[in-house]
């Protein structure tokens, strides 16, 4: 189960696409930390030097649109980001983030109220978001039951292992 996260908010607008999250030229990298050095480079070149472990990305709608590159959420995780809060996520990014264990939360109210640098505390399992700088609390949209069971089982890999064991 995911633990409580705490960090500073880095805020972005809508349609943050995978080309700015991790530009194509870095897609031949495989190490999470190496990818992390270039996270958000296309939109925020100083991000990797500014981000601290556990920080939170807060973005408007359609976060992660574009390519299916799984290195996009991996780079964000590799940079030390604890979670991403957005008004909505693009479809493939949403699956990828869950599959690689990057906590994501959909919460338009929180996105509208959080300013860059605010200190945020998140309980991903409960979908609870607290803005410690402003003293406000928000509840993220619940995952559909199937997604919740996938997350609780530890992600897609344990799910696949169970399916394989059932067949054996």
């Amino acid at each position, binding site marked *: 189960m995911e633990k409580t996260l705490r960090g500073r908010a880095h805020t972005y607008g809508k*349609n943050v*696409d995978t*080309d*700015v999250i991790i*530009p*194509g*030229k870095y*897609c*031949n*990298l*495989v190490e999470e930390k190496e990818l992390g050095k270039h996270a958000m*480079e*296309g*939109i925020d*070149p100083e991000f990797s030097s500014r981000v601290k472990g556990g920080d939170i990305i807060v973005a408007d*709608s*359609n976060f992660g*649109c*574009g*390519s*299916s*590159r*799984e*290195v996009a959420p991996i780079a964000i995780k590799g940079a030390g980001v604890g979670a991403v809060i957005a008004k*909505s996520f*693009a*479809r*493939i990014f949403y*699956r*990828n983030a869950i*599959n*690689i264990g990057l906590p994501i939360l959909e919460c338009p109210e929180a996105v509208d109220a959080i300013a860059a640098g605010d200190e945020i505390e998140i309980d991903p399992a409960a979908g609870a978001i607290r803005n410690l700088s402003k003293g406000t609390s928000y509840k993220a949209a619940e995952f*559909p039951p*199937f997604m919740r069971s996938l997350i609780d089982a530890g*992600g*897609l*890999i344990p*799910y*696949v*292992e169970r*399916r*394989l*064991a059932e067949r*054996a």
Partner: protein
Amino acid sequence: MGMTLIEKILARHAGLDRVEPGQIINAKVDLVLANELSAAVAVNVMRTMKGAKRVFDRTKIALVEDHFVPAKDAQSANLARQMKEFAAEQEIEHFFDVGRGGIEHVVLPEEGLVAPGELIVGGDSHTCTYGSLGAFATGMGSTDIAAAFVLGEVWLRVPPTIKVVYNGMLKEGVYAKDLMLATVGRLGIDGATYRSIEFHGSTIDALSITGRSTMANMAIEAGAKNGIFHADEKALAYVRERTDRPFVVERADADAVYERIVTIDVDALEPQIACPHTPDNVHPISEVTRDRVLLDQVFIGSCTNGYIEDLRAAAKILHGKKIAPSVRVIVNPGSQKVWLQAVDEGILKTLASAGCVVNTPGCGACFGGHMGTLGDGERCLSTTNRNYVGRMGSPKAEVYLASPATCAASALTGWITDPRVVASAPAYS
């Protein structure tokens, strides 16, 4: 209540009589695709899965080297080598090395690996291209692809379907690309997120199969899970020329339920341009050419427009002429077969004589990989599918998207030019 085309396909692959939007299903896959980038990650994930020794079916996996080919550096070469070793170890039947394939989405239909009614997942967002042949095809990340490699099935949420109906005839100089740019502009880049797009209408009935591929390819640019056409006689003929494998042709029910129906009248449609920096920032070309939009580079290729008919359209405009001295023009034929066909038809000679450089088949500059990456402040007109900040290289570059004809016409002048007026535009000879 009836089902849409993809609801029919998904129900059959899930072993169910019917499915409804929102329902989570486990569906059997007919083909799993990966390229050297997505395969490298997927193979590593598969190696960590307990009990995952072999792929589910070595004849139902396609591995294509296309993104950084020929390898641009040692790191890229290692990824390609890793995929090749995996293909050998697992005895993968459909492995396409450099020189025997090309861009995955051009190659798979060409090789008869896509048929109507099939369910295909791929480690690339443009896997949705195969909707041109009436297949349900969607892109996924590498962990999902690893799961599909070993299970031969995927979990999917059944998407609601948007029906898009095109009425009218395309005018001279207006192509499938223009139709799809107009569609993405109309829907918006998240207008079809988590949704399926079902294409209808007299306009698309008249399109070639690869023209339909151009359209299905860009369904993801509206956020869609897939874009799909009904397989008509033209599609069946295309597939039967390439495979004798049995397949099931599905049709949407007459009383299928659509989330919304969008109608696009194409009689008055002019060439379209997606301006920086999103593919839905689409304008009719007459608005864009009010100012002179000077270009540094023109790119013709990609899984959107790397087909033989695209090269023909460009060659027709460039034949016997020279491109403007201020631009470089880079052409990437979509596949080895397209490249050879272009040789046979004299197209490569026409393009090279005009001053274009013709690269090997592959993704090339489209995603800023190599062979045409843009520098700071440069501006490119491209037949590709995305123009996000930094997509083709420098975050300070600008990318405009258009049809191959518009790109070729603009190559002659050095600025964005309407292909319908190119005959009267100044040309260098």
